């Protein structure tokens, strides 16, 4: 089973996404902010992370920065209601796999997740570049 971590400060989003991915046979965990996500990541291993970008205390970018070592291999997909291209660009430089804008179609997110699972983390490649 694929283990998916959903990070979003909005409870309804977490609920909808969880319900969907559970129905698609994912193993889903949800965190309401960056700190909680890191806590969960430290105790469990996940295959993919779907994270909101704009969250209190820690943004999606900061979360990527935090992922180091083995954790750095976990592909991250941002979902954001309001993020500029600049934001995504900075994400890509840090190894962001993909982004989707809210409101999003659940199938699209599933495709992105599947793609991430297929192509693996690009973070290493990105960080390996000179």
């Amino acid at each position, binding site marked *: 089973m694929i283990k998916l971590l959903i990070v979003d400060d909005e409870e309804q*989003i977490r609920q*909808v*996404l969880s319900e*969907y991915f559970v*129905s698609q046979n994912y193993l889903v965990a949800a965190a309401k902010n960056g700190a909680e996500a890191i806590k969960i990541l430290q105790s469990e291993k996940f295959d993919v992370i779907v994270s909101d970008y*704009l969250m*209190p*205390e820690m943004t999606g970018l900061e979360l990527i920065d935090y992922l180091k070592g083995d954790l750095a291999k976990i592909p991250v997909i941002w*979902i954001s209601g309001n993020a500029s291209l600049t934001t995504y660009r900075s994400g890509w430089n840090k190894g962001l796999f993909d982004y989707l804008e809210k409101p999003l179609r659940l199938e699209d997110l599933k495709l992105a997740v599947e793609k991430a699972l297929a192509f693996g983390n690009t973070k290493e490649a990105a960080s390996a570049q000179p």
Partner: protein
Amino acid sequence: MRVTLKTHSLLALALSIFVFLLVLFLVSRAIIFNGFSKIEAQQIALAVERYENTFKSRLKFIESKLSDWAIWDDSFEFLQNRNPRYIASNYGPRPFSVLNINIAAIFDRGGRIVFAREYGPTDKDERFLSPVIQGFFQEERNTVQAAIEGRGSTGLVAIGPDFYLLSIQPVLPTSAEGTPRGALLFARKIDDRFLESLNTELKVHSTLYALKTGTTSNEPSVHHDDKIEGQLSLKDIHEKPVLGASIFLSRPVYLQAKETILFIGLLFICISVFFVALVDYFLNAKILRRIQRMKEFFYKVDKSQDYKLRYQNTQQDELDDLAVSFNSLLDRVSQSQALLRTEEQRYRLAIKSASGGVWDLDLCTKEVIFDQKFKDILGFQENELQNQMWIFDKYCHPEDLPAFKSGLKELVQGSSESFALRLRMQTKSGEWKHVQAETGVTRDDEGMAVRIIGWLKDVSSIVETEKLVVDQQKKITQATKMTALGQMAGGIAHEINNPLAVILGSVQLLQMYKDSDTLTNERLTSQLSRIEATTNRISKIVRSLRNFARDGSHDPFELVEIRKVIDDSLSFCRERIKSLDIQWSETYQIESSAVVSVRPVEISQVLVNLLNNAIDHVKNLKDKRVELSVDVHADTHVIVGITNGGDPLPREIQNHLFEPFFSTKETGQGTGLGLSISHGLAQQNNARLYYDSLSPTPRFILEIPLARLDGSTNLSRKLA
């Protein structure tokens, strides 16, 4: 009639001299003439005495002559022998003339007339004894008899209408012894010649007159103007007063004194005239001519109105003091005139530069004058507009007229000194103009209004501009709001996109369940209620967004809970606070039902602006605190404080915070209008926006008065 100063002084002088002289004259006259009267009385008494003595001495003369003839042997013998030679040689005209007698008579012892002869004073040949005299002898038989018997008598007698000096003596021999043989009588008629000789001798003028029986003339003296009169009574041989004499003395000394006094009087008059002339000359030379000169100078100043002229002083006296005072008055006048001229020029310049029309109402004569500029404003030619106050009634807008009239009334009643109004006035062509009317009043010393002066300026273009400015301001306010919205767009997008994502997710889940036939009622209800809730959330955001974006300047004031206004405002900012990782805190020391009367949209705009500024200020700082505190101050005001981290604003920045286009943000980051517009909006809502300069970190305060509705509504309810 105009009596000049000169006439006054000369009259006074002349009158005083006249009175002085009159008194002097009367006093001297009284003293001198009184003295003269005494002297003259003495003189006349003396003269009367001498007169009487002379009279007596004449008698004595006759008596002594008679004695010579009576005691003479020839006479004695004649009575015996009747010798006619005796008569012929002794009683011819010559002896009568020598003896100065008129009558001679010889009586024998029996009392019979032996011889008698009477001569008129001028008639030398007359030899008769008039019956009157014969009658007298009959009457005076006793006297004759006494003389025959030896007792002669001498004295005055009245014989008929005439008076005589008479002497009768006994005829004796030369030895004067023996018995008389008869008596001899001599009489001298008191006639004009007698009187003349008497007057010549005594150097007087006298008249004689018969006294009526029993009267005497004992008046001591009578003063006539040119002579003095003394009275004397002469007695006859029987000691009966029979003849009165008036003795007149001339008054040469008196007349001399009178002349002298007259002369002195004339001299005095001459001297007075001389003195008056002298005083006149002095008055003219020393005073009047200078007063005249001064008067001419005053006229000159008055006529030419040249107050720079000065009177030239010549002497150091009171007149020059007057001139000095006048000169200093002229100094004052020329100073104030200069001041006045400057003021007037300034006034004219002001009127000219202000390009206004002036109207001037004289409250005493009710005359009003509109100047040409005034008429120009209303589009009239010079002769087209009558100078009447009803011009205002006719051309002023009916809505503006009452305010203007009550303003005038207040000026007249004294409750105000001036007023300014915007009026709408109709021009000749019928078009309406906005005018600024400044009106003031002039009062007299007692505070009564005497003049109303008004100034009228065409401000139509200003009014247009003002309208434009107001419009522009509204647009700018709106634009600034839009800018703020732009700044918040990301947050707002997030606010909407998130719930949209939820709804879309729910819909897809439902679709998925339906496709897989796993759509249970429970799932359906759960998803639908989620969709409903989330839709409400979106609609709430959209509503407040629409509210915020809307132009609220025409909204009525609403009674709203301050908490709701703050919540609405915060809803736009929460996403920014969250995304920029701001350390947010809010404290409420206020009842949730506290109500204010405001235009909520405008207050919301102020709060959003303040919150955005605070967020912008701290977003790049370490100290990312933004605090919202809501308190009540003195039960009257709500104090909304927005505090953020960082150093307090420098004093220079504080001073310019609310000025338009002042910004501390980088170019392109802000319009510089936010705070100035917020400040204006706060004022329009009876609120106050200010920077708390005492706070250790930047802090803005919005102070809104609490609406006092609880007390009044409770009361009205109770009453109901």
